[in-house]
């Protein structure tokens, strides 16, 4: 028996020794290497780099891809990047962009006007692309020829030497800021590929790029290491390796020094990070909307019943209780505190009696079950918030059924529409995107039909050339929104950048991490 105990003890000791010998070393950031957590495409770990034509803003996008212009942190003003400058014609319908010479792709080929023209033409031909690009490039003359067809060129883009000339159907005031988000891809690598499936092309596992970094190691499922691109003509980056990983526990990885940078809007992670003294944070006001899509056919067909939702729910208590300072209650697409907010829109006030009166006025059918749905079922904060919303609606006599969508969000929201209220989020590039939803035939259009009022104002908004004009149109849009209430704005959600205190040279003013801007990545250094 003694022998038996001894052998078990010896095995235990050996195991403990083995574990301590093999124990994972903590990797602190140095100028040789930093580690960044990203949500990468493909699922199941690091599979591929997301196409920058769909979602940009990740560090890998900042580090590898380039646009004609580089946006400043406000995402509105721009500086030259691949292009040296631009010029609009007097009528605002012709834009001439001059490409810089001497810029090279990482495979040594020159970046040319052909790459720019190919990229813009093909953005409208891929199956997965960001709406801000689609909406802007649809304004180029001849865009309908390439959308959903096999035609490869729009008549509205021509070149002359290093100049690229865009002919627009009407002036588009956001065209240049949008171009600053649009990453140019190499035509000589991608021209023969199936463009419809570009987002899943093998190119995104080891892309030919023109930014300061390129892929050094791609370990599928594990990590990507970015290394300096020796063909990059600008200032050479200080940090020699950027490791891109997927983290299952951001806080634990940050605490243990295995991570140096990430961004999030998850309230639990943000709260937990307050105990990590080795990190600094930058909470950012971004246009991240959360709102209820209201099905206007059924119990909420009368606008008064939709208005009742402003008063039936104690938004001012629920949102701070769940999101703290990260959440801000909004009563309009142009929230209070933002330029051109319509101050005549009453702030939300919890008033059950008023809600009940409005419902009575609308002849609300209390016998019908209100189906409240979400596609954010993996986010505990959303589930808690909507459970509370369901409870408060029940308190004014409604029968509420709160469930996650069974199918995919796009089909459920816009095709099936088996709900009365559905939570939706929108990470908008500008407020125009919030209002543009009302005119989108592929989404809201299916639910609320043609909206000539919104369409006309949206069209005027993108053509507005002065602040005064913009303000006037935004005020009209807000009034129209309040008259219809097809969607009920709930709150904004701040995005927070977390970065190791070891890293310096980062921007003094961070921009929206969901977009690309001048974040000075080549100047980052780590102690």
């Amino acid at each position, binding site marked *: 028996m003694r022998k*038996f105990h001894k052998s078990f003890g010896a095995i235990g000791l050996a195991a403990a020794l083995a*574990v301590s010998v093999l124990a994972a070393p903590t990797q602190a950031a140095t100028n040789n290497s930093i580690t960044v957590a990203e949500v990468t495409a493909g699922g199941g770990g690091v599979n*591929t780099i997301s196409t920058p034509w769909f979602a940009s803003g990740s560090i890998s996008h900042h580090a590898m891809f380039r646009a004609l212009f580089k946006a400043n942190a406000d995402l509105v003003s721009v500086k030259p990047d691949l292009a040296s400058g631009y010029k609009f014609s007097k009528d605002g319908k012709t834009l001439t962009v001059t490409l810089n010479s001497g810029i090279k792709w990482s495979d040594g080929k020159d970046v040319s006007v052909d790459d720019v023209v190919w990229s813009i033409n093909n953005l409208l031909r*891929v199956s997965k*692309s960001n709406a801000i690009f689609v909406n802007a490039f649809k304004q180029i003359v001849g865009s309908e020829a390439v*959308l*959903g067809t096999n035609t490869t060129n729009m008549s509205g883009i021509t070149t002359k030497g290093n100049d690229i000339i865009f002919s627009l159907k009407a002036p588009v005031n956001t065209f240049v800021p949008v171009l600053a988000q649009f990453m140019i891809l190499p035509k000589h690598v991608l021209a023969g590929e199936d463009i419809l499936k570009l987002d899943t092309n093998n190119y995104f596992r080891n892309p030919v790029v023109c930014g300061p970094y390129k892929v050094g190691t791609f370990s599928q499922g*594990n990590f990507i290491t970015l290394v300096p691109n020796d063909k990059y003509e600008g200032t050479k980056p200080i940090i020699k390796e950027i490791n891109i990983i997927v983290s299952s526990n951001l806080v634990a990885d940050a605490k243990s020094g295995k991570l140096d940078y990430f961004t999030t809007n998850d309230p639990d992670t943000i709260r937990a990070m307050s105990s990590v003294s080795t990190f600094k944070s930058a909470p950012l006001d971004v246009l991240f909307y959360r709102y209820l899509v209201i099905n206007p056919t059924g119990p909420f067909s009368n606008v008064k019943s939709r208005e009742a939702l402003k008063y039936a729910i104690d938004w001012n208590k629920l949102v701070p209780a769940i999101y703290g300072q990260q959440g801000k209650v909004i009563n309009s697409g142009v929230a209070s505190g933002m330029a051109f907010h319509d101050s005549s829109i009453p702030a939300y006030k919890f008033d059950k009696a008023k809600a009940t009166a409005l419902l009575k006025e609308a002849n609300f059918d209390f016998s019908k079950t209100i189906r409240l749905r979400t596609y954010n079922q993996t986010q505990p904060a959303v589930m808690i918030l909507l459970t509370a919303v369901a409870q408060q609606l029940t308190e004014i006599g409604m029968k509420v059924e709160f469930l996650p969508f069974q199918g995919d969000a796009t089909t459920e929201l816009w095709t099936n529409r088996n709900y009365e209220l559905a939570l939706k989020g929108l990470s908008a590039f500008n407020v125009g995107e919030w209002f543009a939803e009302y005119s989108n035939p592929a989404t809201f259009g299916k639910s609320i039909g043609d909206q000539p009022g919104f369409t006309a104002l949206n069209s005027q908004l993108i053509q507005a050339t002065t602040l005064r004009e913009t303000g006037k149109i935004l005020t009209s849009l807000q009034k129209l929104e309040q008259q219809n209430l097809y969607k009920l704005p709930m709150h904004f959600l701040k995005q927070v950048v977390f970065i190791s205190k070891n890293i310096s040279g980062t921007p003094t003013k961070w921009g929206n991490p969901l977009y690309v801007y001048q974040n000075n990545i080549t100047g980052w250094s780590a102690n």
Partner: protein
Amino acid sequence: MVSFLIRRIAIFVPMALTISALIFFASRLSPIDPINAMVPPDQAADSANLNQLRQELGLNDHIILQYFHWLKNIATGEFGYSLQSGQKISEILALRMPATLELVLSALILSTLLALTLGLFAGANKGGIADKLSRILAVVGIAMPDFFIGLALLNIFAYRVSWLPTGNRVAPGQVTLWDRLPNLILPVATLTIAMLAVLIRYTRNSVLDTLNKDFVKTARSKGVPEWRVLYSHVFRNSLGPVMVLLAFRLPLLVGGSILVEAVFQWPGVGTTIIAAVTASDYPVIMVVSMLIAMVILIASFLVDIVKSILDPRVRLRGGN
């Protein structure tokens, strides 16, 4: 024996076809649209292109036609492409399978060695401390789900004392197998504990059963040393039922342990299945499900053959 094999193969083919039909049509009953699932609800501005993609992927064809097309492709080894990553599914499996094999084989070997040793020891010393310990281990292993064991180990060894990594198979800078051995410890330990439980009980009971057999008593009465009785007579004759259990664990080699891989972010077939289900990547779901089903069928086929070799009465019963 030949007729027994023919009968088994005759059952195998229609079963495989039925399973393939079930997998295909069940995946199509899902309310998730594979094309719409690729884009978030506010990005549907390019619906013309999405419709073109639907056409290109054959999703507008009649469902029966789609099934036979898929079956033909599977039979010819053309597994198709992942909707989510665009990679060839054969390529994904080739990349992910080594990770799963590394994890599952390590756990399978470790759990088998430990279970056989402990089981033999426990059976031979019934009521002794090893027997009690093995029973406690078995109850704990059976009662606690593997993901719970994984989370507990992760909490202690990765988060609290920070001895081991929180997950992943390879971290930047890890080049050799020795470098990445720490990443293997927790997932293998989790899976080993989970596998150990049932196997210990099987081995112990089988040993106890064999110990009561006449040939063991004969060997002892002949004065054969006890260690030799245990090894040559008891242990070898106790392996039959244990081998059957091990054969039924073969499908794990393909499917991996989905939850353990998820807990430790292990980039194997298990996490591929989770990612595919989350993203409605039905071509991947169908191929992996089909592969797992095939391995289960083959494993059960092998078990039948092993059983029939060990016990000819199985063949006779099968014939009747």
